[in-house]
């Protein structure tokens, strides 16, 4: 299999161009660096949007696949056929990963605008930011486990620097907890990848998917622990319940401009990995784990919602709300039926936009009032009406108001859950009510009431308005025309379900 298209390589590595420009700029020219940084996110955005539109017009994504020989371990003189223990440079997209690429490009552009707030070491910030960008694009475009892992770790290291250098007072502790938890996650992932590589001789995702589904040479016990290890590895990233503390720290202490990407994309890598590799390689094992997924999902959902209810800091509310919303992803996957899996993927996309919007607004609030403490904010609707308005919209989207994207994903996920287990579904619905409570409690405390905060009451500037409007438009767009997304993911859902024989 030799694909020679270079579109995906261009897409993944196009940020390098801007990175080079930024790297050779003088530190003092902050304005130029900022402009360059925003402009640099445009080429991937254009490329991925173009691909996305072409795909919806019926373009065959197999045409953009790439495969080039790269490296090979050991010494196996073979004349023909694939050489064992060789790794190819493989890039490919399907509907789901293209959607994620597109989401990544959009959110990165928004995040680069949000990072205008960074005043110190602007150049360094954008250099790390661009490495993170390349890592995220690569994760979704790679069609080889080895390559996937390479990009995955690139995001780990670059976000470590973003948190540790540009976060708030307790940034280093947050950076370390991020590093250790995710280090454990990637070590487990590496364990699985190396084991698969050593026993099958390949890391190509296509080859492995067909291998695991057609070949019975693996003992079912081996497959079960591989599936379980993958679940934990990506579960730490998602995060699932006992492994979530790092993610709270990151949400609260990292610079909000980076949290846009963290909450919007990086957490979703966990879900993406679970769906593409977990369900892709080991469908029957994951089907067997369905009760576990449902249970963990329910715990995430309720635990996050209850704790979000008692937080006094807006960023913490959002952090716990992320935990809660990721529970919906797990519930949908655990339902193992069409509606559930579709809802889970839908939630991945939808929460990406909503979390990004919320954190963009957090960023603007923090920039103006230097606090996100609920007790110290109030009456924003009077002084900064646009900001307050968008905040309200974002919170409504988050609690799943019909006509917005959150509603569709929750609806589909719960339809799936109810088909599988009535009790889990019934408990889950409680959390949806809690979501409405904590979101409204927090947002109303900020927008209405007495003015408490000091600081400059400047409403959203034009570029901020543009960014939040774009995000809001996407949220409504998906809510009103869900077939945008469903058309893209229908193949992935089918592949997941086919493997389960359902």
């Amino acid at each position, binding site marked *: 299999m030799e694909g020679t298209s270079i579109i995906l390589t261009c897409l993944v590595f196009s940020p390098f161009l801007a990175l080079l420009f930024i790297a050779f700029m003088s530190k003092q020219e902050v304005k130029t660096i900022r402009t360059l940084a925003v402009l640099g996110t445009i080429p991937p955005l254009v490329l991925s949007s173009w691909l996305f539109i072409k795909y919806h017009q019926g373009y065959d994504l197999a045409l953009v696949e790439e495969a080039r020989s790269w490296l090979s371990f*050991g*010494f196996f003189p073979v004349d023909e056929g694939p050489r064992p223990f060789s790794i190819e440079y493989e890039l490919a997209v399907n509907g789901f990963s293209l959607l994620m690429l597109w989401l990544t490009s959009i959110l990165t552009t928004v995040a680069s605008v949000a990072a205008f707030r960074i005043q110190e070491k602007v150049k360094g910030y954008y250099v790390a930011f661009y490495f993170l960008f390349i890592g995220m694009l690569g994760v979704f475009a790679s069609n080889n486990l080895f390559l996937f892992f390479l990009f995955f770790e690139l995001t*780990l290291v670059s976000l470590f620097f973003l948190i540790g*250098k540009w976060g708030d007072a307790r940034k280093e502790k947050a950076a370390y907890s991020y590093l*250790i938890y995710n*280090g454990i996650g990637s070590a487990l992932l*590496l364990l699985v990848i*190396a084991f698969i590589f050593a026993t099958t001789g390949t890391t190509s995702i296509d080859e492995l998917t067909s291998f695991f589904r057609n070949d019975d040479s693996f003992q079912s016990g081996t497959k079960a622990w591989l599936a379980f290890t993958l679940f934990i590895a990506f579960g730490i990233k998602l995060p699932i319940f006992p492994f979530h503390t790092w993610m709270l720290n990151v949400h609260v202490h990292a610079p909000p401009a980076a949290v846009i990407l963290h909450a919007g994309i990086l957490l979703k890598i966990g879900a993406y990995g679970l769906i593409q590799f977990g369900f892709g390689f080991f469908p029957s094992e994951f089907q067997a784990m369905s009760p576990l997924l449902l249970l963990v999902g329910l715990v995430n959902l309720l635990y996050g919602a209850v704790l979000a209810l008692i937080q006094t800091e807006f960023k913490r509310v959002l952090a716990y709300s992320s935990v809660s919303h990721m529970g919906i992803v797990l519930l949908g996957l655990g339902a193992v039926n069409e509606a559930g899996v579709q809802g889970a993927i839908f939630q991945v996309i939808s929460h990406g936009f909503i979390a990004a919007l919320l954190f963009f607004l957090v960023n603007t609030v923090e920039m103006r009032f230097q606090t996100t403490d609920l007790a110290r904010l109030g009456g924003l609707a009077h002084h900064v009406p646009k900001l307050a308005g968008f905040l309200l919209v974002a919170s409504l989207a988050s609690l799943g108001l019909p006509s917005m994207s959150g509603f569709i994903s929750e609806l589909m996920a719960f339809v799936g859950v109810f088909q599988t287990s009535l009790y889990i579904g019934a408990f889950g619905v409680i959390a949806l009510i809690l979501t409405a409570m904590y979101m409204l409690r927090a947002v109303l405390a900020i927008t209405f009431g007495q003015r408490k905060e000091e600081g400059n009451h400047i409403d959203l500037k034009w570029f901020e308005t543009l960014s939040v409007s774009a995000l809001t438009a996407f949220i409504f767009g998906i809510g009103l025309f869900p077939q945008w997304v469903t058309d893209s993911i229908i193949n992935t859902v089918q592949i997941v379900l086919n493997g389960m024989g359902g």
Partner: protein
Amino acid sequence: MDIETLLSYEWKAMIPEFIILLTIILISIMDLFRRKKAHQWLGWFAFSGIVFAIISVFVLLGEGTISILYDTFVLDQFAKLFKWLLLVGAGFVLLLAVGYRTGDNSFPHGEFYYLFLTALLGAMIMSSSGDLLTLFVGLELLSISSYILVGLKKKRKSTEAALKYVINGGIATAITLFGLSYLYGLSGSTKISDMVLIFAQNQDASVQYVLGLAFLVTFVGLSFKIASVPFHMWAPDVYEGAPTPVTSFLSVVSKTAGFILLIRVFLSVFGNAQGNDGLTMFEQLKPFIAILAILAIIVGNVIALRQMNVKRMLAYSSIAHAGYILVAFVSLSPYFYLDTIWFYLLAYLLMNIGAFAVIQVIGGRIESFAGLYRTSPFIAIAMTVFLLSLAGIPGTAGFIAKLHILLTAFSSSSLEWALVIALLGGTIVSYVYYFGVMVQMYFRPPKKEERTSIPTTVWLVVAICLVFTLALGIYPQMALDIFHRG
């Protein structure tokens, strides 16, 4: 022995050794006549000797196995490839030494060069010895020269380190020799190829018992050279006290030599000796090495967490890395074996020498790394890459090396889960201290604003190591091809 027999030997097998020997003799003479400050020329002369030796190894790469002097000197593929590693490592160390400056000129460069080359010669002889005698001569040549090298600075710390090194080394050598004496006693020969034949046919359980004893005792003795548990405690003190070029020599060249010795003796003698249940002695006794490897990984990584001196930290991390290589050593995979160890040593050479080069100009204390990115960004970025590589982050040579070890472990006939888990667990722990240095470089304000001046040769070493650490991480095929074509 008349002149004709003497000439009938294929002396070309020893050309690399001869080149180094000639360089040593010339330098030691030239050192007597040089002016005080002209040590740089000596350094370049020594360097050119190493370069010629590297070239000659490459020329010899095409030859088949040559065995001369009654099989005491063997130049096989293994010897060439590992000799190449030793020479490349030594070349880097030499460049570091040329750029090594102390405030009071207390470092005698001339003596360093020829003692250093003597140590290298010992290591090279070890890598092609087919007889326990040559093996031991090489080992002693390496050891005794390194004892002096450690104490070269003649300062209190350096002398203390040298003394520790001599005493520990003496004990270790005695233990090694004790183990080797069993081998001789049981086989009646010092020739490795003879031993292989004799032990392969041995059925006697009591002989197997003594062989097992020899196995353990020899391994314990040799663990000194590779700085692994149980003979690891010298490493931190000696690494800290020795002049930095010597430290990098100990952690790279000397360690490589230790592994060469280990492979030579254990793989051939014990790897063929018959044990119980149709297993070889090596397979039967490898759990012991596995336990020591796990201990090395734990001890190295855990104690490294608490170090405030980067040199000491790298000493403990080098203990851990020895443990990682031992994981590959005991795995005995049918598909990957020597290539794994070779590649790991190569990657380790690049990243570790790079890191020591940076330490040489910046200093060992962790505070001196504070704000390095502000004062000298290039050095900081280079150090970051070396640390990432040591931590095994993808995109660097260290990751490929670690993946290679994992592959070896997973494809071995009897998979040891404990080893794999220790390897991965150790890697996670190591993130903490490697990233700790990065925290200093990027997140802390600098103590002093001025830039440290960097000697050209050190700069060169940092740049080359940086390029190859990245290149081998992204395209390792170029090194793997050298191995598999050779």
